[in-house]
C-alpha cells in the first residue's frame, strides 16, 4: 500500500472512532429533543415541517463536513486533505 493511501486509511479509521462517539451523543441529545417537536410539526404544519426538514439536513450537512474536516486535520495535519 502506498504511504499516502496508508495514511489516509489510518486517518479515516481514527476519525471513524471519534466520529462514532460524537454521533452516539448526538442521537441521545439532539434527536431525542427534536423528535416530539418534529412529529408535532409533521402532523400540524406541513409547510413549516418541509422548510425545517430541508434546513436541518443542509445544516447537518455543513456541520458534519466541518466536523470531519477538522477531525482529519487534527488526526493527520500533514496529509493531503485540505
Amino acid at each position, binding site marked *: 500500500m502506498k504511504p499516502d493511501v496508508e495514511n489516509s486509511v489510518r486517518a479515516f479509521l481514527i476519525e471513524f472512532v471519534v466520529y462514532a462517539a460524537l454521533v452516539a451523543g448526538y442521537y441521545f441529545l439532539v434527536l431525542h429533543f427534536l423528535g416530539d417537536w418534529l412529529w408535532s410539526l409533521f402532523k400540524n404544519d406541513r409547510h413549516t*415541517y418541509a422548510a425545517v426538514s*430541508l434546513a436541518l439536513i443542509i445544516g447537518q450537512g455543513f456541520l458534519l463536513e466541518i466536523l470531519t474536516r477538522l477531525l482529519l486535520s487534527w488526526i493527520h495535519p500533514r496529509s493531503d486533505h485540505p
Partner: protein
Amino acid sequence: MTFPIAGVHISPIYLMAVGFVVGILGGFFGVGGSFLAGPALFGAGLPMNFVVGTDLAHIVGKSIVAARKHRTLGNIDLKLGLIMVVGTIAGVESGAQIIQWLKRTAHIDLAVGLAFVIILVGISGFMTWESIQTLRRSRGSRKNMRQPPPGEHPSKRDHSAVAHIARAVHRISIPPYISLPVSGINRISLWAILLVAFVGGLFSGFLGGGAGYIRMPCLVYLLGIPTHIAVGTDLFEIIISAGYGTVSHALKGNVDILIALVMHTGAAIGAQMGATLTQYFGGQRIRMAFIPLPVLGALLMLHGLLSGHPAK
C-alpha cells in the same frame, strides 16, 4: 430506535451503515445511491412513500459533504453547475408531471420499473463498450490523452474512445455560446448544457433519486467534461434536484427527517472517504468501476417487479 413520523422501529446502526455505504458510492461516483438505499430502507420496514422522500432528504446532506470535498479538490465546475440548475429544475418538474400522468393510467410501477431497467442496462452496456475501446486505444497510442494543466494530479488525465461525440456536441451551432475554462472547454452551445441538465432532471423526477447514474455519463460522453469534474459537478446538481424533491415530498408527508438525519451521519463520513478516493484513480478507472452500479440497480428493480414490491 422508534421513529414516530413514519411510525417504524429501525436500528440506528443499520441506518448509519446503509448511509455509510451509499456515502462512499456518492463521494466516489457522484451518484445519490438511491438504487441501493431505497431497497435497504424498504427492507427495514419503511413504507414506500417514506422510502422515496426520506432517501432524497438524506441525499441532500450527503451530497453537500461530498460536493464540498470535491470543491477543495478542484473537481467542481461552478459555472457549469449553476447553468445546469435551470435545466435540472425544469426536468425534475417535467418528470414529476409524467409520473402524475402515469398515475391516472394503470401499470405505473411496471412502466417506471421497465424504463428504469432498460436505461440502466443501456448505460452500463455503453460504458462497458466505451471502456474496452478506450483500453484498446490507450495501449496503442497515448496521443489523444488529455494532459492535465500544470499542478493537476496525474490521476486526472482523462481520455475516451468516444471523444468524437463530445466534439460533435461542441460544434453545435446554436447561440449563445459559453466557455468552461475549469472543464477545458473553449466553446459550447448553452442549449447543449441545458438539454443534458433537463434530461438528468427528467430522470430524477421520473425515477426518483438524484439521477447521477445518467447525468454523470452524459457530462462525460456528451459534453466532454473530464470524469473527476463530472463527478463533482454532478454532486452539485444532485443537491439542487434532491433538495427540490425533499421539499416537494415533505409537503406530501413522505419524509421522515429523523431517519434521514441518522442515515446522513453515516453517509457524511462515507462521502468524505469516497471523494478522497477519487484522487487515487484516473477517470477511465472511475468509469470502469461505475459499470456494475447501474446493473445492480436494474437487478434490484427487476427483483422488486417480479416479487411485487418495486424497489422505487
